[in-house]
């Protein structure tokens, strides 16, 4: 998505990106960004919560108006109304995506190796 913002901006449009992944926006470099701590698939707020959606959009418009240089990232203070576990569950598809099915075992192995390395590198008491 940051790539789309960059390409539209380069074509002469003024853009603002609202995202749950500000680290991704920072790594790729987006012109103007509002970060929200929301679950994926709920970028502007909860379905049916028009006031929350409008608050987020108004914050994004302020970023658009006030950002003075490319790479501006503002952080919203909106709080997601559900508990963490529920927020993790609510956005995920009912079955894993094809790439997760393929990559899952490899990534799990990588995580196991990381954990083993980090436990071996801990100083012994």
């Amino acid at each position, binding site marked *: 998505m940051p790539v789309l913002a960059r390409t539209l901006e380069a074509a002469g449009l003024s853009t603002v990106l609202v995202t749950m992944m500000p680290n991704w926006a920072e790594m790729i470099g987006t012109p103007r960004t509002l970060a929200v701590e929301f679950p*994926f698939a709920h970028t502007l707020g*909860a*379905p049916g919560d028009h006031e929350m959606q409008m608050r987020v959009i108004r914050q994004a418009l302020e970023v658009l108006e006030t950002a003075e240089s490319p790479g501006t990232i503002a952080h919203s203070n909106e709080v997601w109304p559900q508990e963490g576990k529920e927020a993790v569950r609510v*956005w995920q598809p009912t079955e894993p995506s094809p790439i997760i099915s393929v990559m899952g075992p490899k990534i799990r192995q990588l995580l196991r190796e990381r954990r083993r390395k980090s436990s071996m590198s801990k100083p012994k008491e």
Partner: protein
Amino acid sequence: MPVDSFKYLPRLIGAIYETTDVQKEIPIPWTPLERPISECTFGLVTSGGLYQRGVEPPFDLQRERLEPTWGDPTYRTIPKDITSVELGVSHLHINNEAVESDINVLLPVHRFDELSQEGRIAGSSDHHYSFMGYQGYPPDTTAWREIYAPAVAEKFKSEGVQCVLLTPS
């Protein structure tokens, strides 16, 4: 408090993000606002995999199922007055229920009508656009950069758009 990008990600998916190489391209593009946003027409773009049923096809999920490292780079046109019956969602990486029940969580067509009515913005374009965010693993955004996003930019400009709000999913 800064937003934690990984707060609602399972460790497995967080690890995929962490192990994906991205290159920051400098300079970051910049188009300054040339007028107050109360005089600007807005376009909306999401990567939520939205499409208009009966008018355009869904994103090509069948090919993605056969080639999991590939993602459909094309886009779909979403008229601003699309109804909930017409709205289709094709995306294998998220739960589509939220946007199916309220399009505004990703493509805020009704909120922008309200902003226009109150005079905060001049208006929004008659057509908005959706991509599907999964662009393969490792991600390949060449077609977005070279073909499809420039095409969307030209369509927006032909409708008098100056500003764009983007929402990933």
